[in-house]
């Protein structure tokens, strides 16, 4: 009988790592607390930089789970060390004794309402990147009378000490540009603004997307962090920023504002970290042994990481890290046990 490995978190990292482990001859036990596998990806409509549909990535992965025991709507109740194994008890009453656990708990979308000055949850025309993907995916647009001027606010809950998230969330810049182009397709006559601090177009074809957004879509880029959003008496928004390249305050009346909520550490990271006695960084993400050399290994024997659980990552980075984690676990399990 093949050896079990517990994988906690059924997003892209967890699914991909489970498939890899299975291919290496193990039986992964994949645990997901929500009713569906796929994590944030399951909610997303299209992916940067080329705009392919998210389901074309996720569906084949979810269709290929033979040999993987997976449990949705299931949480970890406890994890205990027993000699050189981990005993994992689940909320469904099952338990497993394994030598290796992989944490693929991903990230939480930053709660945009915490940036009180942007008025998410107070002003109806303020939505988030995730709301916009829901809209794109379901086709059920919010009912606003006219959508002529649209803004995207980068760095919402990223690079922000007051919001408790100092890190750059990495994917929001390019997501904003992608969504700005998409919304321009839906409303060709609309004027679309992106408010950014730095445009971090670090990946292959990202800069091309930015160029296309400028030239083909006429997206207007304003270098300035949005300072305040308010509402007039017919529900339209006033957005204030400094146009820093111009050196003057800027106030634009808008019909829709999209907040690029960043990646915050998953809320249950601390609890899981306590169960297996590992550290989270002061940013709340798990600390691997080395961010460069061994991003998938923890300071504790038999505990591994993959994906955004150790910090903001793109989807391809997450998938390749899942593969690396599977190899690291394989190597660990093949190393003879110390007596």
């Amino acid at each position, binding site marked *: 009988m093949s050896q079990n490995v517990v994988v906690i978190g059924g997003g892209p990292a967890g699914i991909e790592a489970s498939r890899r482990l299975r291919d290496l001859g193990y039986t992964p036990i994949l645990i997901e607390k929500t009713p569906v596998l796929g994590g944030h990806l399951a909610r997303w409509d299209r992916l940067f930089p080329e705009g392919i549909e998210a389901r074309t990535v996720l569906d084949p992965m979810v269709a290929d789970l033979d040999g993987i025991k997976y449990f949705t709507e299931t949480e970890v109740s406890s994890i205990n060390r027993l000699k050189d194994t981990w005993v994992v008890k689940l909320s469904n009453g099952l338990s497993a004794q394994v030598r290796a656990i992989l944490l693929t708990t991903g990230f939480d979308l930053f709660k945009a309402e915490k940036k009180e000055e942007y008025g998410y949850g107070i002003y109806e025309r303020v939505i988030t990147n995730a709301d916009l993907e829901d809209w794109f995916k379901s086709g059920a647009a919010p009912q606003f009378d006219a959508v*002529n001027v649209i803004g995207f606010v980068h760095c919402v809950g990223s690079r922000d000490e007051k919001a408790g998230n100092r890190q750059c969330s990495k994917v929001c810049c390019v997501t904003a540009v992608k969504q700005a182009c998409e919304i321009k397709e839906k409303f060709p006559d609309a*004027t679309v603004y992106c408010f950014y601090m730095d445009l971090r177009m670090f990946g292959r074809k990202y800069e091309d997307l930015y160029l296309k957004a*400028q*030239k083909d879509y006429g997206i207007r880029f304003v270098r300035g962090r949005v300072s305040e959003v308010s509402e007039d008496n017919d529900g339209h928004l006033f957005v204030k920023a400094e146009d820093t*390249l*111009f050196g003057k*305050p*800027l*106030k*634009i009346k808008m019909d829709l504002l999209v907040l690029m909520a960043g990646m915050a550490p998953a809320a249950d990271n601390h609890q899981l970290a306590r169960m297996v006695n590992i550290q989270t960084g002061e940013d709340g993400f798990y600390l691997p042994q080395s961010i460069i050399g061994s991003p998938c290994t923890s300071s504790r024997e038999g505990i591994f990481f993959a994906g955004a659980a150790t910090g903001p990552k793109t989807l391809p980075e997450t998938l390749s890290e899942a593969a690396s984690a599977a190899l690291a676990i394989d190597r660990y399990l093949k190393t003879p046990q110390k007596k």
Partner: protein
Amino acid sequence: MIDFGYGLTPSSTLKIENVANPAFEELRQREPDVAKCIACGSCTASCSAGVFTEMSLRRVILSLQRGREKETLPMLQHCMLCGKCLLVCPRGINTRHLILSIGKVYKMEEDR
């Protein structure tokens, strides 16, 4: 009316309530590359006229986009069309041609 010795002052805020900017749209039709500017400042750094005057092509492009052409168009009169900015633009904008197009769209000849 009473003179109090002080009074209301105009705001410096760029207020964009009506976003229509037909002049810039015309420029974009004629010179699509203008939209590619990333405000990196390479043009300003290499500008022959910029050494002696406040000429900054980056600022001109930005002010046209914001509909505040009055604030920067006079700068362009310092341009000697030497073309050094064309060599350094990382987005490959034909800046020399762009400057000439700005002159046409914004009718600068008449002012000269």
